[in-house]
């Protein structure tokens, strides 16, 4: 006990060598405890692999070794393995529910795994408004923001600014909070945060999304490359592990056109389509390119870019083994800074660049029009987004779409992927002019889904991959944006897309009711359909 107290005191004063010395002695009497102290020292020294090894062994020797258990959470957070951090966090929280440090670390891991409600539940009891802890308060702001609890987020931010207003972490949180409702003010805050910590990767990454939303493409795309770095983790631009060991190229000027370059598709499938808008320009400059993409995307890419070999992600090891003939790999998001550094670059290069399977397209049109006797087909989709927050931002519940479906001269085809049984039941009970294509798995059979999209005369959809595919194929799209924010590529104002040839943007205003918004969309979108 006396030795443990000495070790605790040494750690408290950050005397790591002394703590290590004492832990060596402790190990002789109690191996598990000694290893736990050694693990904490390794963690403080940022030797994360060693910390993991020591703490795991300590915990395996004694499952009640709380010091090891508690420190495994920050160890895995540092190693960017948030699943394990959460797993040990759950155990540690069950054993030490009142330990503030355990709660803060567990909540940090939960935030990374998008479990905002659980993180909130854990952090709230630790809030002391008189003497707030900066980690508790910043965790709470992140939770409130992600759960769209605007008032609570603003109140907490005011407390944070009062007590810790000059801290980088708080200035960045303020910027994050403002990012969607006031991007200009958010950008100012990001810049202020970077004055405190100029090399903060996560801040630069978050700032890039605001810069891109504001149309500051030149600097925005440069900062966007911070999303490739491990500090940002999986909410950034994580790439397949299969490419580890090969050279990641983000500066296009360093590419030798006489060598092969792998262009690796990254991010969600919609982002991939957006990024591929520059592929033809890239191929002109670097014809020796291999495109790496998902198997389901391959038929579309091969048809649209017949000159480019399209290989699966499993090709990664060929890169690291053949550095003499291969430049390395370029994540396709990084193309943008060379070819899309201004709004004008987007507009002057708008073109159709994805081609559907014409035979499938014709078959869909024949089936849909012949069977129904309708004149027009309108495809629709009401929910999108991968992350919970993105889903809440993008989705416009199907119950709001009544003004659209009232048009009885049109056949509406659901292009929505994922689980739709409830909505299907709801719509079937109200409308006879809505069709669902059974037997076509929209997520797996991307080529079939794309042909169906292109078989439609018009698309009405929230921001989802569908819009990018339809846009890249030159189809007429009515994009519906909620008042809760939208992906950067749709900008902040204007009623047409800078990236695609025929996308009309309908932005819901805060002052509008949902009914007013949908009535307006129906009038603009469907009147045009009838008149066409």
């Amino acid at each position, binding site marked *: 006990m006396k030795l443990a107290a000495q070790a605790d005191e040494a750690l408290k004063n950050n005397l790591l060598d002394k703590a290590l010395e004492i832990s060596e002695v402790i190990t002789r009497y109690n191996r598990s405890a000694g290893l736990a102290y050694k693990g904490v020292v390794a963690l403080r020294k940022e030797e994360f692999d060693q910390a993991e090894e020591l703490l795991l062994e300590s915990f395996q020797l004694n499952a009640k070794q709380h010091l090891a258990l508690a420190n495994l959470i920050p160890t895995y957070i540092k190693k960017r393995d948030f699943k394990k951090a959460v797993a040990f966090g759950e155990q540690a929280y069950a054993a030490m529910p009142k330990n503030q440090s355990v709660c803060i670390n567990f909540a940090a891991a939960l935030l990374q795994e998008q479990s905002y409600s659980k993180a909130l539940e854990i952090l709230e009891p630790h809030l002391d408004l008189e003497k707030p802890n900066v980690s508790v308060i910043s965790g709470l702001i992140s939770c409130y923001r992600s759960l769209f609890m605007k008032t609570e987020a603003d109140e907490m931010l005011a407390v944070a600014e009062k007590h810790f207003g000059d801290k980088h972490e708080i200035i960045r949180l303020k910027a994050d909070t403002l990012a969607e409702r006031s991007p200009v003010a958010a950008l100012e805050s990001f810049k202020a945060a970077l004055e405190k910590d100029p090399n903060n990767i996560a801040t630069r990454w978050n700032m890039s999304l605001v810069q891109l939303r504001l149309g500051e493409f030149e600097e925005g795309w440069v900062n966007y490359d911070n999303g490739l770095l491990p500090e940002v983790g999986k909410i950034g631009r994580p790439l397949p592990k299969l490419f580890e060991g090969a050279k990641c190229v983000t500066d296009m000027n360093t590419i030798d056109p006489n060598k092969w370059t792998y262009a690796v598709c990254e991010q969600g499938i919609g982002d991939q389509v957006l990024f591929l808008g520059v592929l033809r320009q890239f191929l002109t400059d670097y014809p*020796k390119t291999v495109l790496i993409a998902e198997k389901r995307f391959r038929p579309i890419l091969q048809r649209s870019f017949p000159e480019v070999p399209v*290989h*699966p992600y499993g*090709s990664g090891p*060929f890169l690291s*083994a053949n550095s*003499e*003939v291969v430049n390395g790999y370029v994540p396709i998001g990084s193309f943008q800074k060379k070819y899309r550094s201004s709004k004008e670059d987007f507009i002057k290069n708008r073109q159709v660049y994805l081609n559907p399977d014409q035979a499938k397209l014709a078959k869909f049109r024949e089936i849909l029009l012949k069977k129904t006797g309708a004149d027009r087909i309108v495809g629709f989709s009401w929910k999108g987004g991968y992350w919970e927050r993105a889903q809440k931002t993008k989705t416009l519940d199907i119950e709001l779409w009544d003004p659209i479906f009232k048009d009885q001269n049109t056949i509406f085809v659901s292009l929505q992927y994922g689980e739709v049984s409830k909505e299907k039941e709801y719509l079937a009970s109200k409308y006879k002019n809505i069709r669902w294509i059974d037997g076509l798995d929209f997520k797996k059979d991307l080529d079939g889904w794309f042909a169906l999209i292109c078989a439609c005369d018009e698309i009405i959809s929230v921001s989802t991959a569908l819009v990018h595919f339809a846009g890249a194929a030159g189809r007429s799209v009515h994009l519906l944006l909620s008042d809760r924010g939208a992906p950067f590529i749709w900008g902040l104002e204007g009623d047409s897309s800078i990236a695609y040839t025929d996308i009309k943007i309908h932005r819901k205003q805060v002052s509008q009711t949902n009914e007013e918004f949908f009535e307006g969309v129906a009038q603009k979108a469907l009147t045009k359909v009838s008149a066409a």
Partner: protein
Amino acid sequence: MKLYDLIKDKLKDPQGVISDNEMCVLNRRDFLYSETSTSSAFLKMFGAERVTYEMYSIIDFVHASVCKIRPPNQVRVFQLSQSMTLPSLAVSALVGDQASKIQIHAPRGIQAVDVKDPFAKMLVERFESQLNSNLTMADIGSCDANTIDILFCNASNEAEVSSGLKSFEKVKRGFILIKGYGRNKAPNCGEIILSARLNVHCTLAGFGFSSAI
């Protein structure tokens, strides 16, 4: 037809199935047919994705065996059967420039390879240049410690397997891989194996191998 298709109605929800027209394994994880599989990517590049599961497994075994090769190590491949062209090509493509040198000897020649794209063509051209190596069967085993000898043969030819195993006796560092070794009526060359104090491990996928490590 996959064997699994013949029996799937009689099975109660198997958790993982690996099957082609000659084998079916249940409740196993598959690492080879997935789109993150390097074997699968390699075979697709050469229009060979319809080969048996055994060939997928051979390519994967080759990759697992050569993935740690770095200079000053050099690799020599002795391809005794034409049907082992894909494994030889896999050595060439997956070792790439990670070895000081790659030489390939194919006394019976190689099979034509279906080149699907210009990147694959580049890999084949380099493979073909490595074939012009002046290497002979007599060179097996006569080398320094940095040389890795890899022998590929096919059990469909007994003489080939005997000759391969005899040659492998001299190998100081490397492995022999025999396609079809587990096939019914394939030669097992027991006497040679025993007299050389070798063990040829026969994989469930069907190929056999023995390593000098």
